[in-house]
Protein backbone atom coordinates (compact mmCIF):
# COMPACT_ATOMS: atom_id res chain seq x y z
CA UNK A 1 0.00 0.00 0.00
CA UNK A 2 1.39 3.31 -1.07
CA UNK A 3 -0.40 6.06 0.75
CA UNK A 4 0.71 8.77 -1.62
CA UNK A 5 -1.17 7.05 -4.37
CA UNK A 6 -4.17 6.28 -2.27
CA UNK A 7 -4.65 9.84 -1.12
CA UNK A 8 -5.57 12.64 -3.44
CA UNK A 9 -3.41 15.74 -3.43
CA UNK A 10 -5.70 18.21 -1.77
CA UNK A 11 -6.09 16.39 1.50
CA UNK A 12 -2.48 15.49 1.38
CA UNK A 13 -1.44 18.98 2.35
CA UNK A 14 -3.26 18.98 5.65
CA UNK A 15 -2.98 15.43 6.81
CA UNK A 16 0.38 14.24 5.75
CA UNK A 17 1.06 11.31 8.01
CA UNK A 18 0.59 7.75 7.00
CA UNK A 19 -2.51 6.68 8.93
CA UNK A 20 -1.50 4.18 11.55
CA UNK A 21 -4.18 1.70 10.56
CA UNK A 22 -3.63 1.96 6.85
CA UNK A 23 -2.43 -1.61 6.50
CA UNK A 24 -5.58 -2.97 8.03
CA UNK A 25 -7.75 -1.10 5.53
CA UNK A 26 -9.12 -3.42 2.85
CA UNK A 27 -9.35 -2.28 -0.72
CA UNK A 28 -10.86 -4.40 -3.46
CA UNK A 29 -8.58 -5.40 -6.31
CA UNK A 30 -9.26 -6.09 -9.91
CA UNK A 31 -7.41 -7.70 -12.76
CA UNK A 32 -7.93 -6.13 -16.15
CA UNK A 33 -8.61 -8.46 -19.05
CA UNK A 34 -8.26 -6.95 -22.48
CA UNK A 35 -9.53 -8.59 -25.61
CA UNK A 36 -7.18 -6.99 -28.09
CA UNK A 37 -9.02 -7.86 -31.26
CA UNK A 38 -12.12 -6.01 -30.19
CA UNK A 39 -10.50 -2.77 -29.07
CA UNK A 40 -11.11 0.23 -31.31
CA UNK A 41 -9.04 2.73 -29.44
CA UNK A 42 -11.97 4.96 -28.48
CA UNK A 43 -10.23 5.84 -25.25
CA UNK A 44 -13.34 5.79 -23.06
CA UNK A 45 -11.84 3.37 -20.56
CA UNK A 46 -8.62 5.33 -20.37
CA UNK A 47 -10.31 8.66 -19.84
CA UNK A 48 -12.92 7.56 -17.37
CA UNK A 49 -10.95 5.08 -15.29
CA UNK A 50 -11.07 6.73 -11.88
CA UNK A 51 -7.77 5.19 -10.93
CA UNK A 52 -5.95 5.95 -14.17
CA UNK A 53 -5.01 2.36 -14.64
CA UNK A 54 -5.24 2.23 -18.42
CA UNK A 55 -3.35 3.74 -21.31
CA UNK A 56 -2.99 3.43 -25.04
CA UNK A 57 -0.30 0.98 -26.11
CA UNK A 58 1.87 1.14 -29.20
CA UNK A 59 0.68 -2.26 -30.30
CA UNK A 60 -1.66 -2.54 -33.28
CA UNK A 61 -4.42 -5.07 -33.49
CA UNK A 62 -5.73 -6.63 -36.69
CA UNK A 63 -7.67 -3.50 -37.62
CA UNK A 64 -4.77 -1.22 -36.87
CA UNK A 65 -5.99 0.14 -33.58
CA UNK A 66 -3.57 0.84 -30.74
CA UNK A 67 -5.13 -1.38 -28.15
CA UNK A 68 -5.49 -0.31 -24.57
CA UNK A 69 -3.24 -1.71 -21.89
CA UNK A 70 -2.60 -1.45 -18.19
CA UNK A 71 -0.10 1.21 -17.16
CA UNK A 72 3.10 -0.35 -15.96
CA UNK A 73 3.30 -0.08 -12.22
CA UNK A 74 -0.41 0.54 -11.78
CA UNK A 75 -1.47 -3.07 -12.09
CA UNK A 76 -2.41 -3.09 -8.43
CA UNK A 77 -4.31 0.18 -8.56
CA UNK A 78 -7.42 -1.30 -10.15
CA UNK A 79 -10.17 -1.45 -7.54
CA UNK A 80 -12.51 -3.45 -9.76
CA UNK A 81 -15.14 -0.75 -9.99
CA UNK A 82 -15.79 -2.09 -13.51
CA UNK A 83 -16.64 1.28 -14.93
CA UNK A 84 -14.42 0.53 -17.91
CA UNK A 85 -16.27 -2.70 -18.48
CA UNK A 86 -19.55 -0.79 -18.51
CA UNK A 87 -18.51 1.99 -20.83
CA UNK A 88 -16.45 -0.04 -23.27
CA UNK A 89 -18.65 -0.05 -26.35
CA UNK A 90 -16.69 -2.94 -27.78
CA UNK A 91 -16.95 -5.54 -25.02
CA UNK A 92 -13.19 -5.44 -25.27
CA UNK A 93 -12.25 -5.41 -21.66
CA UNK A 94 -13.51 -6.76 -18.42
CA UNK A 95 -12.45 -6.91 -14.84
CA UNK A 96 -11.90 -9.97 -12.80
CA UNK A 97 -12.22 -9.27 -9.13
CA UNK A 98 -9.25 -10.66 -7.26
CA UNK A 99 -10.31 -12.19 -3.99
CA UNK A 100 -8.33 -12.07 -0.79
Amino acid at each position, binding site marked *: MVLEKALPEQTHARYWRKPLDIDSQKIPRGKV*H*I*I*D*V*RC*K*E*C*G*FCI*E*FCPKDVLEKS*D*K*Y*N*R*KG*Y*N*VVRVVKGREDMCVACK*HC*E*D*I*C*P*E*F*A*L*WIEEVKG
Partner: protein
Amino acid sequence: MSAPFVDKLEGLEDVHPADKWLRTDMLPHIWCPGCGLGIVLNAYIKAAEKAQIPREKRVVVSGIGCSGRAAGYLNQDSYHTTHGRSIAFATGIKIARPDLNVAVISGDGDLFAIGGNHFIHAARRNMDIKVICVNNFNYGMTGGQGGPTTPIGAKTTTTPYGGFEHPFNLPWLAATCGAVYVARWTTLDSRRLRDSIAEALTKKGFAFVEVISPCPIGFGRPNKIGSGLDEMKMYMDKWDLKPPNWITQEGSNPREADITLGKPIVVGKFVDIDKPTFLDLYWKILPHKEETPLNDVEKKQVAGAKA
Protein backbone atom coordinates in the same frame (compact mmCIF):
# COMPACT_ATOMS: atom_id res chain seq x y z
CA MET B 1 10.56 1.52 -36.90
CA SER B 2 7.27 -0.18 -36.75
CA ALA B 3 5.37 -1.03 -33.65
CA PRO B 4 4.76 -4.69 -33.03
CA PHE B 5 1.65 -5.98 -34.70
CA VAL B 6 -0.61 -7.87 -32.36
CA ASP B 7 -3.59 -10.01 -32.89
CA LYS B 8 -3.59 -11.26 -29.40
CA LEU B 9 -4.78 -14.80 -29.51
CA GLU B 10 -4.72 -15.12 -25.78
CA GLY B 11 -7.28 -12.34 -25.85
CA LEU B 12 -9.67 -14.61 -27.63
CA GLU B 13 -9.40 -17.08 -24.86
CA ASP B 14 -10.72 -14.43 -22.56
CA VAL B 15 -14.41 -14.65 -22.07
CA HIS B 16 -16.03 -11.32 -21.49
CA PRO B 17 -18.86 -11.62 -18.99
CA ALA B 18 -21.22 -10.23 -21.61
CA ASP B 19 -20.11 -12.77 -24.18
CA LYS B 20 -22.69 -15.32 -23.21
CA TRP B 21 -25.38 -12.84 -24.14
CA LEU B 22 -23.74 -11.91 -27.40
CA ARG B 23 -23.30 -13.56 -30.75
CA THR B 24 -19.56 -13.28 -30.40
CA ASP B 25 -18.95 -14.50 -33.92
CA MET B 26 -20.18 -11.06 -34.99
CA LEU B 27 -17.62 -9.16 -32.92
CA PRO B 28 -15.97 -6.78 -33.27
CA HIS B 29 -19.21 -5.08 -34.23
CA ILE B 30 -19.68 -2.69 -37.11
CA TRP B 31 -19.99 0.47 -35.05
CA CYS B 32 -17.37 3.19 -35.28
CA PRO B 33 -14.71 3.73 -32.65
CA GLY B 34 -16.19 6.11 -30.11
CA CYS B 35 -19.78 5.20 -30.88
CA GLY B 36 -21.95 4.75 -27.82
CA LEU B 37 -24.19 1.98 -29.14
CA GLY B 38 -22.05 -0.75 -27.63
CA ILE B 39 -22.50 0.83 -24.24
CA VAL B 40 -26.26 0.77 -24.64
CA LEU B 41 -26.13 -2.84 -25.72
CA ASN B 42 -23.98 -3.64 -22.71
CA ALA B 43 -26.40 -1.74 -20.50
CA TYR B 44 -29.32 -3.71 -21.89
CA ILE B 45 -27.55 -6.99 -21.23
CA LYS B 46 -26.72 -6.03 -17.67
CA ALA B 47 -30.14 -4.54 -17.08
CA ALA B 48 -31.92 -7.65 -18.27
CA GLU B 49 -29.67 -9.65 -16.00
CA LYS B 50 -30.40 -7.32 -13.12
CA ALA B 51 -34.11 -7.46 -13.82
CA GLN B 52 -33.76 -11.25 -13.82
CA ILE B 53 -35.46 -11.75 -17.12
CA PRO B 54 -34.79 -15.28 -18.34
CA ARG B 55 -33.07 -15.37 -21.68
CA GLU B 56 -35.87 -17.22 -23.41
CA LYS B 57 -38.26 -14.47 -22.39
CA ARG B 58 -36.17 -11.67 -23.81
CA VAL B 59 -36.96 -10.25 -27.21
CA VAL B 60 -35.26 -7.28 -28.79
CA VAL B 61 -36.63 -5.67 -31.90
CA SER B 62 -34.75 -3.00 -33.76
CA GLY B 63 -35.29 -0.89 -36.80
CA ILE B 64 -32.91 0.45 -39.37
CA GLY B 65 -29.74 2.41 -38.93
CA CYS B 66 -26.66 1.83 -36.85
CA SER B 67 -28.81 1.10 -33.84
CA GLY B 68 -30.81 -1.40 -35.85
CA ARG B 69 -27.87 -3.71 -35.67
CA ALA B 70 -28.16 -3.89 -31.92
CA ALA B 71 -30.71 -6.69 -32.03
CA GLY B 72 -28.58 -8.96 -34.13
CA TYR B 73 -25.65 -8.90 -31.76
CA LEU B 74 -27.70 -10.32 -28.95
CA ASN B 75 -27.72 -14.03 -28.44
CA GLN B 76 -31.43 -14.20 -27.79
CA ASP B 77 -34.57 -13.75 -29.80
CA SER B 78 -33.93 -10.70 -31.90
CA TYR B 79 -35.61 -9.12 -34.87
CA HIS B 80 -34.03 -6.53 -37.09
CA THR B 81 -37.01 -5.10 -38.91
CA THR B 82 -37.75 -2.36 -41.42
CA HIS B 83 -37.12 1.33 -40.98
CA GLY B 84 -39.35 2.81 -38.33
CA ARG B 85 -41.49 -0.26 -37.82
CA SER B 86 -39.79 -1.89 -34.90
CA ILE B 87 -42.44 -0.76 -32.43
CA ALA B 88 -45.26 -2.11 -34.61
CA PHE B 89 -43.43 -5.40 -35.02
CA ALA B 90 -42.81 -5.54 -31.30
CA THR B 91 -46.48 -4.81 -30.70
CA GLY B 92 -47.35 -7.96 -32.62
CA ILE B 93 -44.91 -10.05 -30.60
CA LYS B 94 -46.12 -8.69 -27.31
CA ILE B 95 -49.78 -9.28 -28.07
CA ALA B 96 -49.08 -12.76 -29.32
CA ARG B 97 -46.88 -13.64 -26.36
CA PRO B 98 -47.68 -11.39 -23.38
CA ASP B 99 -45.27 -13.41 -21.28
CA LEU B 100 -42.28 -12.21 -23.29
CA ASN B 101 -40.28 -9.15 -22.35
CA VAL B 102 -40.20 -7.16 -25.54
CA ALA B 103 -37.76 -4.32 -25.94
CA VAL B 104 -37.11 -2.08 -28.88
CA ILE B 105 -33.61 -0.70 -29.25
CA SER B 106 -33.44 1.80 -32.04
CA GLY B 107 -32.29 5.22 -33.08
CA ASP B 108 -33.80 8.66 -32.91
CA GLY B 109 -34.45 8.89 -36.63
CA ASP B 110 -35.92 5.42 -36.84
CA LEU B 111 -38.19 5.84 -33.86
CA PHE B 112 -39.21 9.44 -34.22
CA ALA B 113 -39.08 10.42 -37.86
CA ILE B 114 -40.24 7.53 -39.99
CA GLY B 115 -41.46 5.62 -36.96
CA GLY B 116 -42.93 8.51 -35.00
CA ASN B 117 -46.51 7.44 -35.59
CA HIS B 118 -45.94 3.99 -34.17
CA PHE B 119 -44.18 5.46 -31.17
CA ILE B 120 -46.93 7.83 -30.21
CA HIS B 121 -49.62 5.23 -30.66
CA ALA B 122 -47.81 2.50 -28.78
CA ALA B 123 -47.31 4.99 -25.95
CA ARG B 124 -50.94 6.02 -26.13
CA ARG B 125 -52.10 2.41 -25.93
CA ASN B 126 -49.64 1.78 -23.12
CA MET B 127 -48.44 -1.21 -25.05
CA ASP B 128 -46.27 -3.19 -22.68
CA ILE B 129 -43.02 -2.78 -24.59
CA LYS B 130 -39.78 -1.05 -23.65
CA VAL B 131 -38.34 1.43 -26.05
CA ILE B 132 -34.68 2.33 -25.72
CA CYS B 133 -33.87 5.19 -28.05
CA VAL B 134 -30.23 5.75 -28.77
CA ASN B 135 -30.22 9.43 -29.61
CA ASN B 136 -27.16 10.65 -31.45
CA PHE B 137 -28.92 13.60 -33.08
CA ASN B 138 -28.41 12.41 -36.64
CA TYR B 139 -28.71 9.59 -39.14
CA GLY B 140 -25.35 7.98 -38.64
CA MET B 141 -25.53 5.02 -40.98
CA THR B 142 -26.46 7.00 -44.06
CA GLY B 143 -23.71 9.49 -43.41
CA GLY B 144 -24.77 11.98 -40.81
CA GLN B 145 -27.97 13.61 -42.04
CA GLY B 146 -30.13 15.84 -39.90
CA GLY B 147 -33.16 14.34 -38.21
CA PRO B 148 -36.00 15.04 -35.83
CA THR B 149 -33.65 15.45 -32.88
CA THR B 150 -30.94 17.53 -34.53
CA PRO B 151 -30.58 20.61 -32.34
CA ILE B 152 -31.07 24.03 -33.85
CA GLY B 153 -27.73 25.18 -35.14
CA ALA B 154 -26.18 21.74 -35.31
CA LYS B 155 -24.44 20.88 -38.54
CA THR B 156 -25.16 17.71 -40.43
CA THR B 157 -24.78 16.78 -44.08
CA THR B 158 -28.36 17.94 -44.71
CA THR B 159 -28.14 20.96 -42.45
CA PRO B 160 -24.82 22.29 -43.73
CA TYR B 161 -25.59 25.76 -42.39
CA GLY B 162 -26.87 24.44 -39.08
CA GLY B 163 -30.16 22.84 -38.15
CA PHE B 164 -33.12 25.17 -38.40
CA GLU B 165 -36.01 22.93 -37.39
CA HIS B 166 -37.26 22.64 -33.85
CA PRO B 167 -36.15 19.28 -32.59
CA PHE B 168 -38.26 16.88 -30.57
CA ASN B 169 -38.01 16.89 -26.81
CA LEU B 170 -38.29 13.13 -26.58
CA PRO B 171 -39.06 12.71 -22.88
CA TRP B 172 -41.83 15.25 -23.15
CA LEU B 173 -43.16 13.63 -26.28
CA ALA B 174 -43.19 10.24 -24.59
CA ALA B 175 -44.75 11.61 -21.44
CA THR B 176 -47.52 13.44 -23.22
CA CYS B 177 -48.26 10.42 -25.37
CA GLY B 178 -48.86 8.42 -22.24
CA ALA B 179 -45.68 6.50 -21.47
CA VAL B 180 -45.67 5.19 -17.91
CA TYR B 181 -41.92 5.37 -17.55
CA VAL B 182 -39.73 8.04 -19.10
CA ALA B 183 -36.05 8.57 -18.45
CA ARG B 184 -33.06 10.06 -20.17
CA TRP B 185 -29.40 9.30 -19.60
CA THR B 186 -26.15 9.59 -21.43
CA THR B 187 -23.87 6.73 -22.36
CA LEU B 188 -21.51 8.00 -19.71
CA ASP B 189 -24.13 7.28 -17.05
CA SER B 190 -23.68 3.58 -17.72
CA ARG B 191 -24.74 2.53 -14.26
CA ARG B 192 -27.81 4.71 -14.08
CA LEU B 193 -28.61 3.73 -17.63
CA ARG B 194 -28.42 0.07 -16.69
CA ASP B 195 -30.57 0.58 -13.61
CA SER B 196 -33.04 2.65 -15.54
CA ILE B 197 -33.33 0.07 -18.30
CA ALA B 198 -33.75 -2.62 -15.66
CA GLU B 199 -36.50 -0.53 -14.14
CA ALA B 200 -38.07 -0.04 -17.54
CA LEU B 201 -37.86 -3.75 -18.34
CA THR B 202 -39.74 -4.63 -15.17
CA LYS B 203 -42.19 -1.76 -15.51
CA LYS B 204 -45.59 -2.80 -16.75
CA GLY B 205 -46.55 -0.69 -19.70
CA PHE B 206 -44.90 1.50 -22.26
CA ALA B 207 -41.50 2.46 -20.92
CA PHE B 208 -39.17 4.83 -22.69
CA VAL B 209 -35.49 5.37 -22.04
CA GLU B 210 -33.62 7.90 -24.14
CA VAL B 211 -29.86 7.53 -24.24
CA ILE B 212 -27.76 10.42 -25.43
CA SER B 213 -24.94 8.74 -27.28
CA PRO B 214 -21.87 9.99 -29.08
CA CYS B 215 -21.65 9.76 -32.85
CA PRO B 216 -18.12 10.91 -33.60
CA ILE B 217 -18.46 10.67 -37.36
CA GLY B 218 -22.00 11.80 -38.08
CA PHE B 219 -22.38 14.41 -35.36
CA GLY B 220 -19.10 14.98 -33.60
CA ARG B 221 -17.08 15.77 -36.68
CA PRO B 222 -19.27 18.36 -38.41
CA ASN B 223 -20.01 20.07 -35.11
CA LYS B 224 -16.36 20.22 -34.17
CA ILE B 225 -16.93 18.27 -31.00
CA GLY B 226 -14.10 15.97 -31.85
CA SER B 227 -13.92 12.29 -31.09
CA GLY B 228 -16.48 10.12 -29.36
CA LEU B 229 -14.39 10.57 -26.29
CA ASP B 230 -14.74 14.34 -26.53
CA GLU B 231 -18.47 13.95 -26.84
CA MET B 232 -18.49 11.69 -23.81
CA LYS B 233 -16.56 14.31 -21.90
CA MET B 234 -19.28 16.79 -22.72
CA TYR B 235 -21.66 14.63 -20.72
CA MET B 236 -19.37 14.92 -17.75
CA ASP B 237 -19.61 17.59 -15.15
CA LYS B 238 -17.72 18.47 -12.07
CA TRP B 239 -19.45 19.23 -8.84
CA ASP B 240 -18.33 22.82 -9.01
CA LEU B 241 -18.78 23.36 -12.71
CA LYS B 242 -21.40 25.93 -13.55
CA PRO B 243 -23.56 25.55 -15.36
CA PRO B 244 -23.34 21.79 -15.22
CA ASN B 245 -23.72 19.75 -18.34
CA TRP B 246 -25.92 17.55 -16.38
CA ILE B 247 -28.77 17.98 -14.01
CA THR B 248 -30.66 15.16 -12.46
CA GLN B 249 -34.24 15.95 -11.85
CA GLU B 250 -36.10 12.97 -10.57
CA GLY B 251 -39.74 13.37 -11.35
CA SER B 252 -39.17 16.77 -12.83
CA ASN B 253 -41.16 18.13 -15.68
CA PRO B 254 -40.02 16.64 -18.98
CA ARG B 255 -41.26 19.82 -20.63
CA GLU B 256 -37.97 21.36 -19.55
CA ALA B 257 -35.87 18.61 -21.12
CA ASP B 258 -35.26 20.39 -24.41
CA ILE B 259 -31.82 19.87 -25.82
CA THR B 260 -30.18 23.07 -26.92
CA LEU B 261 -26.60 23.41 -28.08
CA GLY B 262 -24.45 24.94 -25.40
CA LYS B 263 -26.89 24.23 -22.61
CA PRO B 264 -26.79 21.40 -20.13
CA ILE B 265 -28.54 18.21 -21.06
CA VAL B 266 -31.18 17.45 -18.51
CA VAL B 267 -31.12 13.80 -17.60
CA GLY B 268 -33.01 11.79 -15.05
CA LYS B 269 -36.20 9.90 -14.61
CA PHE B 270 -39.14 12.03 -15.56
CA VAL B 271 -42.15 9.78 -15.35
CA ASP B 272 -42.89 6.67 -13.35
CA ILE B 273 -46.61 6.07 -13.08
CA ASP B 274 -48.94 3.12 -13.21
CA LYS B 275 -51.86 2.58 -15.49
CA PRO B 276 -53.45 -0.36 -17.22
CA THR B 277 -51.73 -1.61 -20.34
CA PHE B 278 -53.31 -2.36 -23.70
CA LEU B 279 -53.71 -6.00 -22.80
CA ASP B 280 -55.00 -5.24 -19.29
CA LEU B 281 -57.81 -3.24 -20.79
CA TYR B 282 -58.26 -5.72 -23.64
CA TRP B 283 -58.93 -8.54 -21.23
CA LYS B 284 -60.96 -6.36 -18.95
CA ILE B 285 -63.29 -4.96 -21.57
CA LEU B 286 -63.38 -7.93 -23.90
CA PRO B 287 -65.13 -11.12 -22.93
CA HIS B 288 -62.66 -13.98 -23.22
CA LYS B 289 -59.72 -14.75 -20.96
CA GLU B 290 -57.85 -17.88 -21.70
CA GLU B 291 -54.23 -18.75 -21.76
CA THR B 292 -53.94 -20.37 -25.14
CA PRO B 293 -55.33 -18.84 -28.27
CA LEU B 294 -55.98 -22.15 -30.05
CA ASN B 295 -58.64 -24.58 -29.04
CA ASP B 296 -57.92 -28.27 -28.67
CA VAL B 297 -59.02 -29.29 -32.11
CA GLU B 298 -56.95 -26.59 -33.74
CA LYS B 299 -53.96 -27.53 -31.68
CA LYS B 300 -54.27 -31.12 -32.81
CA GLN B 301 -54.61 -30.06 -36.40
CA VAL B 302 -51.55 -27.88 -36.21
CA ALA B 303 -49.56 -30.44 -34.28
CA GLY B 304 -50.33 -33.05 -36.87
CA ALA B 305 -48.76 -30.91 -39.51
CA LYS B 306 -45.36 -30.80 -37.88
CA ALA B 307 -42.57 -31.73 -40.18
